[in-house]
């Protein structure tokens, strides 16, 4: 397989919602190319359409015009090679941790759903929690289970919609470190929505800064920090400079 098999190409995507006070442009002619294995963050103030763009890439929302291609075929909600993780963990309380994680693979009729789920529970440090009920877990653990579920079908493309924004700062940092490690090890093409600059700098290869009304791209900033990423890097001079640069690009819209 060629390495650009799971590149994402967003071409001229516009999204217009009809509101009571007339049409509102949530996204205005977005063009974006994400290379295979690249980690790209969409960052901006609320209302900039970053979540809408992610949902369009996921095939969950139809663009008003333009197109999204993943690995050469159009975005579609039920693609098994693309996995989405939401802001809330959305675990099913009638299933235990393992059953939650294996659900996507099970729906795809994969015989090895259980083993695959166990593998990703181990990767996310949840092996001992497989038979726990989800209500026994803390918020951070729940989101970790959600991450394991997103990975359980071993998708080449991972879409994440502010997955850690509801967590406390320390839990968020720990999960960021783990996500960075998983990315360094497996190199999935990842599109990550966040409004946290430090988080975006720590995780990303590139950050797409966005502005609201109408939602559009302000700048695309390369994050040339060495990989593998470590927690110590968050306070390095290079990371701080990049964070400032990111902040400046959107400061007019805050």
């Amino acid at each position: 397989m060629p390495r650009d098999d799971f590149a994402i190409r967003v071409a001229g995507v516009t999204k217009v919602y009809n509101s009571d006070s007339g049409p509102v442009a949530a996204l205005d002619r977005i063009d974006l190319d994400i290379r295979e294995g690249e980690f790209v963050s969409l960052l901006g103030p609320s209302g900039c359409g970053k979540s809408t763009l992610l949902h369009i890439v996921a095939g969950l929302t139809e663009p008003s015009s333009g197109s999204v291609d993943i690995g050469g075929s159009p975005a579609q909600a039920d693609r098994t090679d693309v996995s989405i993780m939401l802001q809330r963990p959305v675990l099913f309380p009638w299933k235990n941790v393992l059953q939650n994680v294996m659900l996507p693979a099970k729906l795809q009729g994969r015989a090895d759903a259980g083993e695959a789920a166990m593998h990703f529970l181990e990767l996310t440090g949840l092996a001992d929690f497989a038979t726990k009920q989800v209500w026994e877990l803390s918020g951070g653990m729940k989101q970790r289970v959600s991450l394991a579920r997103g990975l359980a079908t071993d998708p080449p493309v991972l879409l994440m919609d502010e997955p850690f924004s509801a967590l406390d700062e320390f839990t968020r940092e720990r999960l960021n470190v783990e996500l960075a490690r998983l990315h360094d090890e497996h190199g999935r093409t990842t599109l990550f929505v966040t409004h946290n600059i430090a988080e975006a700098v720590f995780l990303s290869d590139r950050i797409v800064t966005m502005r609201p009304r109408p939602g559009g791209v302000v700048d695309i900033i390369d994050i040339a920090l060495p990989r593998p990423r470590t927690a110590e890097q968050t306070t390095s001079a290079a990371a701080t400079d990049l964070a400032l640069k990111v902040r400046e690009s959107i400061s007019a819209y805050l």
Partner: protein
Amino acid sequence: MSSMVSTEPGTALPGAVATVPTRSRTSRLWRATWPPTVVIVGILAVWEAVVALHWVNPIILPPPSAIGASLAGLVTEPFFWEAAQATMTETLAGFLIGIVTAWMLGTLLGMSDLARRALYPIVVAFQITPRIAFAPIFLTWFGFGLESKIVMAATICFFPLLLNVLVGMETVDRDARTLMRSFGASRWQEYRELTLPASLPLILAGIKNAVTLALIGAIVAEFVGASVGMGVLSKTFSFQLDVASSFAVIIALMFFGLVLYGIVELIDKKLVYWRDQS
């Protein structure tokens, strides 16, 4: 008095020390049962005294002791068990027919937006209508036998459960639906893995309601016209001014209702084990 609040082990209240480790099932059971027990015993004592003091005519309001004696006598009579069996058959058959049809129709309506919009107002209209008013019509249609009572019991518990099934399906978490779409779940998979379990708490609540409604339906239908049943028994005793026996029948019905409700409650606890956690 200061020694009473001492925290030293040797001087603490003797009773408190003993109950701390065993503050488990028995103590919780006791905590739950003693207040209603006190109230019930109090009411029965006042009731008994009021009649004994001839403040009320015992024919109009027989004392609890007389009701107890009537009940003790009734349960030895074959006609009582014949009546109980008839009423229980009507209630259970009506209940089962009512909940199965309500669940099936509710699920079908919940799956089709057009069908739901078309039938929802009609369901609400029937929900608001006092359905027991249908009892005379059902008597005309289905006769004096068990059938008219079964239909009444089924009708009375059908609509509330249908509404619960519909509401349960509508209130499924939107993010969860989004995820199921992204997993590529088929309609049937989405129903089995998400919609059904997510709406189960409301459905079971509806079923708990339905079991008591079914009993009401059966009794009312018996009042309207029947030859056998607890409703018939209660009515007959009242006409004979045997109010004590009439009360005894009501006590027996209360007991049946409790048993039925308890069974559904048990099923609910087993089936929706996550209810209190989420």
